[in-house]
């Protein structure tokens, strides 16, 4: 097939935008939420994951996800891109562009999990966990949903990663948070975010970058991409308002952290649906995402008493799953959506497929994540020693300090 120059131009840009989401976007978003003595360690996690996963993606990750293979996992035919040249084509794009765009998704997914284990993890554990997780959780699920695997064959709808990115990362976060144990003092005596402004900058970058994430998932520069960024943006905006509104009613004041958390929740929620719904669908996804994630945060923290420290499961996991379900409803042409996959056909049938996708993704993510964490714990160890935690990971794990007067 012929390469489409316009699509290529847009996906090159989208790739830059999604990398920008992780570096420096997510790094800032997360670093602002921890204590100052651990801020650099969080940034370091994001940078290190970016480097590590990129090389793994070249080595085997891309091939496991997107080479032919079975319904369950790809093969190694594309390992190290040995057979890919400038002229290789995937769909309407040069294969290198497709490879890079997908790589940025493979990077940000384990980077999201950073939020679960901040302020207490050993750096070795971050590296080993992320590497194994990327190959054992991300690559297969990516293959199932986008790489021609069994869920794609069933017609599952996941436009930009409600399952592949957010559900996997959310469940992985829960697993590692439980097995790693909570921060000292959790839940009563923990400290507020050290730098909400940093979190705002990160959230702004995530929002802008998400145009590339969802809009780029159209793999074309057309009305599909346009509609995707439209619903993405409207979901984010609505969710920000709703979350801040909930805070205003419940706690007397709308906070900036709350509003940007809502924005991110809205973005996560709209992600799987962003290619299938219309503008009002975006508003509905944002509003419901904000409400559900808002209470999920409290449920995880206060009921389940799990220290998923920066709420990765409650915001990304729950949002992604919710959006995956709602996609099946809001895609209905009657509701302004784009209709259903041929092999599903009706809202009911699609819902069943979506539930299968959610169930399989969460189950596999849970089982595999737990196994990976146990292996990491048994080998390099999981938790930094108490003195390291006391003095902060920046100084003790990386020999650096966030500010020197």
């Amino acid at each position, binding site marked *: 097939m012929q390469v489409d120059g316009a699509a290529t131009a847009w996906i090159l840009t989208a790739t830059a935008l999604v990398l920008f989401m992780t570096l420096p976007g997510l790094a800032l978003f997360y670093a602002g939420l921890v204590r100052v003595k651990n801020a650099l360690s969080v940034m370091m996690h994001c940078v290190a994951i970016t480097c590590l996963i990129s090389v793994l993606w070249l080595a085997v990750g891309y091939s496991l996800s997107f080479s032919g293979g079975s319904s369950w996992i790809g093969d190694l035919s594309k390992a190290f891109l040995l057979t890919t040249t400038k002229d290789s084509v995937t769909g309407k794009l040069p294969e290198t562009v497709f490879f890079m765009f997908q790589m940025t998704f493979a990077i940000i997914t384990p980077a999201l999990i950073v939020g679960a284990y901040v302020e207490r993890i050993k750096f070795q554990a971050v590296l080993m966990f992320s590497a194994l997780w990327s190959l054992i959780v991300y690559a297969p699920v990516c293959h199932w949903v986008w790489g021609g695997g069994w869920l794609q064959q069933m017609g599952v709808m996941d436009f930009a990663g409600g399952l592949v990115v957010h559900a996997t990362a959310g469940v992985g976060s829960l697993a590692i948070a439980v097995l790693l144990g909570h921060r000292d003092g959790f839940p009563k005596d923990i*400290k*507020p975010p050290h730098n909400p402004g940093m979190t705002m900058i990160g959230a702004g970058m995530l929002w802008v970058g998400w145009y590339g994430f969802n809009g780029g998932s159209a793999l074309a520069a057309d009305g599909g991409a346009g509609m995707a960024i439209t619903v993405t943006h409207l979901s984010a905006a609505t969710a920000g308002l709703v979350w801040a509104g909930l805070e205003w009613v*419940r*706690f007397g*004041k709308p906070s900036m*952290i709350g509003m940007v958390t809502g924005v991110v929740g809205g973005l996560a929620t709209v992600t799987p649906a962003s290619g299938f719904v219309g503008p009002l669908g975006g508003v509905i996804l944002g509003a419901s995402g904000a409400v559900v994630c808002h209470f999920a*945060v409290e449920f995880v923290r206060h009921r389940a008493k799990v220290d998923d420290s920066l709420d990765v499961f409650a915001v990304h996991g729950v949002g992604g799953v919710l959006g995956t379900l709602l996609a099946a409803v809001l895609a209905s042409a009657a509701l302004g959506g784009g209709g259903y996959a041929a092999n599903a056909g009706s809202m009911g049938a699609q819902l069943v497929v979506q539930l299968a996708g959610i169930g399989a993704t969460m189950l596999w993510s849970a089982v595999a994540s737990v196994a990976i964490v146990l292996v990491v714990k048994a080998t390099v160890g999981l938790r930094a020693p108490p003195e390291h935690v006391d003095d902060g990971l920046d100084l003790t794990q990386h020999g650096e300090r966030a500010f020197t007067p």
Partner: protein
Amino acid sequence: MKLIMAMVKPFALEPVRLALSAVGVEGMTVSEVRGYGRQKGHTEVYRGAEYVVAFMPKVKIETVISDDQVDAVVEAIRGAANHGKIGDGKVFVIPVEQAVRIRTGETGAAAL
């Protein structure tokens, strides 16, 4: 000589500085601190979780003055920093045995 150490609300710094100038205080040192007293701090809510922030932002003003200025200085600070609100702050008086101006080597009151 005495060291007057006053903890006041941050926005009271400027009025206090002017009041001190007015009573002839010619030098002072200021630091950003956090304080705790009758005003017990507050609770901040982030993502639905309550964070007890025990300390409120305050400014600490330190000025070394001669003994005869003490009452005037304490009065000046009170006048400028008193808003009748909890957390307005405190003034402490601490004895100082010597003061030296680095540049000139002057000592005692001459160094202030």
